């Protein structure tokens, strides 16, 4: 019956040492883990992340064991790479536990043995397979980091090399141990060790004494490397083995598009985050979950246009600052300005792990994270969408913005204008609120206050500031009004009773102003019955009304105009000739607050399919779409750093050879309109909202 003597060529003393080492490893792991836990507890208390345990556990298990977030479109190589390493690691670990069970529990206490026969054969076949996958995954990782020359791996740290080196050494010595034993003992079951068997055959001619000696040396080095690995886990990026799934488990489960609200804001003394302790404990876990994979950078508008903000750097640096303040081994900390005087550039030598304590004077905002980095963010969510361990970057940035705005009153001058305008006119511009409905009068659209019987209305059209005041935006609103008329939708607008939804204020950190604006709108909407559907033509308004107004007592059914138009077409209320546009048609651009934040990817595409007979898909699309640069109140700030985000995206749209770009957001429209003029392509490249394309298709029919 095939089996093997457990502990062949290993003395009792060596076994004793091994068990002592295992105990030491466990203690050190527990110690490292406890230090981290204590550090996280310095954050603000927050009960949310521990609710709905069952749902959280299911999600965390699926993400961890099925690689739901690692194996995604565009990430086949790195997804498989991690899958191989992960399952190799898990199965080899289970394999070790099985041997432990046989040798230390079943045999001594029950006098039984299962580590033989068919079980043994299957065990060996499987262990060899997963050991091989483990090695393949590791070699793929070595090639990915050091061979492929990816922009995001322009610099690597010694931590990256140590982790790969240790794991490779463990995998190789594991197979070598097996091969040496097979060769020295002439094991008749050798062929079932199908990976190490060829090595054993090659070693066949070597003197058995040499093989035995080599086996002992390899055994000790394998064991010591294993100890080193376990001690290294809590102080390196390998901590993600534990912190990654923990972070996924603790993720925000509120509507993902809603920023948290500051309750009783008028009674607070302190706002947002100015120092580590101001983060919630869950947010502190974020910083330890990062293993620097850099997927956050792939679709990041600021990283890809050479701006200071690089989400990975932000997380790595705050994490290192946190760890060093707690006296734990970690990367960079304190003031760091590289040769060019630019903060937050690529990983540098300063990011090397170190135990140097942070000088107490180092401020989180200013020394560790620059204000430029914080104001760069468009809140497009590309980083959060791609992060395999669901780090929540955008709320971290908004929390720090909140401190700058509400407490320190330190922010770009353009935002002073924005806030003043929002306060005075309830719109981001200097147009008086009384002129909000002027476009509607011209287009024959009614205001709710003028409607004799509001109950007869089907929907309320929420126009938004851009389409109310901006001449270009008004064309979108007018097109939508034409569509409503063609489908005989009874609707009205709030008009002069509508005010800014508050999105730019909230994302710029002015939570107080957001709440004032939102409360005013909620009061009006509740007055007109909250049961009516609201159709919004601005994804920012759409998102805020739908996902954030419930925090302040406004519960409405809100849909975006792309969804409503799709509904009108599919129900047959809106008749469009299934035409094909002349020329090459449009490329479709996903607005972040429609796509990534609310997962409305198909409705606008279906509409394009119906009226234009299709559209060109850009390489960066859907959840991997690329921001136009307007979100997070960036539309109201100057883009002084790096190259233009909108130009980067426009060039991608132009490269599809389409005749124009179709969007579903007035801010995207204006960013791209500016872009086509700057790139000097306005003659041959159009920018249209899908409502305009649909309205034009109606016109050609009549």
């Amino acid at each position, binding site marked *: 019956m095939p089996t093997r003597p457990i502990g062949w060529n290993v003395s009792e003393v060596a076994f004793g040492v091994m068990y002592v080492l295992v105990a030491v490893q466990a203690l050190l792991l527990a110690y490292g883990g406890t230090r981290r836990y204590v550090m996280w507890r310095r954050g603000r208390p927050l009960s949310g992340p521990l609710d709905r345990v069952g749902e959280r556990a299911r999600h965390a298990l699926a993400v961890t064991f099925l690689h739901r977030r690692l194996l995604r479109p565009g990430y086949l190589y790195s997804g498989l790479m991690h899958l191989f390493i992960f399952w190799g690691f898990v199965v080899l670990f289970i394999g070790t536990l099985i041997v432990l069970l046989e040798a230390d529990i079943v045999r001594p206490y029950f006098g039984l043995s299962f580590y033989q026969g068919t079980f043994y054969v299957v065990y060996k076949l499987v262990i060899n397979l997963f050991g091989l996958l483990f090695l393949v995954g590791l070699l793929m990782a070595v090639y990915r980091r050091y061979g492929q020359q990816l922009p995001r791996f322009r610099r690597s740290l010694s931590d990256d090399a140590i982790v790969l080196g240790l794991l490779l050494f463990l995998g190789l010595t594991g197979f070598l141990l097996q091969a040496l034993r097979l060769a020295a003992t002439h094991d008749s079951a050798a062929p079932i060790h199908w990976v190490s068997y060829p090595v054993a055959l090659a070693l066949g001619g070597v003197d058995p004494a040499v093989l035995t000696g080599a086996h002992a040396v390899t055994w000790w080095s394998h064991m010591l490397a294993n100890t080193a690995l376990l001690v290294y886990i809590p102080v390196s990026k390998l901590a993600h083995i534990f912190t990654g799934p923990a972070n996924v488990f603790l993720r925000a489960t509120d509507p993902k598009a809603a920023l948290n609200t500051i309750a009783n804001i*008028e009674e*607070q003394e302190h706002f947002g985050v100015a120092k580590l302790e101001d983060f919630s404990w869950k947010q502190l876990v974020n910083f330890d979950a990062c293993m620097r994979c850099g997927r956050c950078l792939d679709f990041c508008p600021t990283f890809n246009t050479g701006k200071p903000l690089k989400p990975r750097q932000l997380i790595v640096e705050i994490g290192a600052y946190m760890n060093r303040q707690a006296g734990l081994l970690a990367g960079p900390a304190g003031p760091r300005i590289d040769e060019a005087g630019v903060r937050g550039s690529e990983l540098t030598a300063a990011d090397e792990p170190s135990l140097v304590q942070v000088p107490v004077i180092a401020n989180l905002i200013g020394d560790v994270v620059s204000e430029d980095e914080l104001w760069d963010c468009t809140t497009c969510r590309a980083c959060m969408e791609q992060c395999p361990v669901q780090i929540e970057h955008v709320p971290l940035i908004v929390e720090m913005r909140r401190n700058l705005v509400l407490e320190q009153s330190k922010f770009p*001058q353009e935002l002073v204008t924005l806030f003043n*305008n929002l306060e005075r006119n309830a719109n981001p511009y200097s*147009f*008086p*609120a*009384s002129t909000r409905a002027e476009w509607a009068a011209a287009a024959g659209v009614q205001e709710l206050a003028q409607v004799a019987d509001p109950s007869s209305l089907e929907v309320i059209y929420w126009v938004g500031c851009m389409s109310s005041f901006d001449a270009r935006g008004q064309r979108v609103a007018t097109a939508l009004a034409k569509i409503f008329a063609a489908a005989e939708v009874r609707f009205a607008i709030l008009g002069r009773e509508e005010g800014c939804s508050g999105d730019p204020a909230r994302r710029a950190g002015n939570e107080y102003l957001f709440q004032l604006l939102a409360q005013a709108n909620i009061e009006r909407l509740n007055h007109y019955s909250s049961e009516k559907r609201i159709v919004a033509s601005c994804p920012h308004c759409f998102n805020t009304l739908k996902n954030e107004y419930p925090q302040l007592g406004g519960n409405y059914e809100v849909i975006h105009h792309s969804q409503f138009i799709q509904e009108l077409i599919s129900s047959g209320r809106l008749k469009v000739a299934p035409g094909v546009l002349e020329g090459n048609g449009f490329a479709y651009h996903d607005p972040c607050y429609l796509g990534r934040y609310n997962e409305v990817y198909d409705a606008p595409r279906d509409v394009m399919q119906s009226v234009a007979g299709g559209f060109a898909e850009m390489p960066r699309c859907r959840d991997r779409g690329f921001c136009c640069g307007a979100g997070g109140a960036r539309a109201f700030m100057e883009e002084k750093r790096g190259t233009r985000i909108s130009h980067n995206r426009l060039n991608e749209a132009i490269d599809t050879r389409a005749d124009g770009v179709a969007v579903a957001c007035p801010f995207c429209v204006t960013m791209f309109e500016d872009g086509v003029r700057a790139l000097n392509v306005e003659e041959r490249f159009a920018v249209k909202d899908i409502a305009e394309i649909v309205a034009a298709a109606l016109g050609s029919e009549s």
Partner: protein
Amino acid sequence: MDIVVTVKQVPDPDIPPTHFRVDEATRTVIPPAGVSPVMNGYDAHALEAALRLRDQLGGKVTVVSLGPDSARDALKRAIAMGADAAVHVNDPALNAADSTTTARALAAAIKKLGHVDLVLSGRQASDTDGGQVHLGIATHLGLPAVSPVQKIDDPSAETVVAERIVEDGYQRLRVRLPALLGVSSEMNEPRYPPLKGIMAAGRAQIPVWTAADLELEAGQPGKVQLRRLYVETREASVEIIEAESPGEAGAKLADKLREARLV
């Protein structure tokens, strides 16, 4: 350094002029509904300058405004931005005050406040664009006045250096304190109030002083009297000049223009 800043509440200057109506009977301007008035822009620059001087040298910033009940909002805004105290001069008798009366009332209020090192005012208000009141205050208080000022330098207990805008550049003047400076918008960017300031302003009790409190002599007429307030009417008419040739048309056009005394 104890500084007094005078502020005026004005209609939002961003409102297009066409949105205002004029009541000729009462000689008042009626702003569009639903638009809240704001602190005069130049006054915000003056307040910002005062706050920076105080933060640098210590002392106290007091804001004073003359106006109806609604002017309290401008004072609250000033407290939100960081002013230490505010005084609201509010009396129906002063509602239609011209610039001399306003200057007299504000000067009396500043005198009542006691010790003052520096008075900062906006160079003019965006509604009337008169630019008279702050110079009147200086006259009544017997203070040296410099206006319009784009920069304040080298402040000490006795003097400051004021950069006065002149046609082709600026003058640098060392001014003995106490003095009054008319602040122009080149000086700074007014801050946006932190939330704590907004909350403090919400709670602040602002004392109201009437004409009697200021011991203003009643019945002193203003120097400016508003006779009529109206919106200019514009008339346009078109006349086509008929002629055989361009040359003849030109000659006829010239005659017409001369008739109309346009050339």
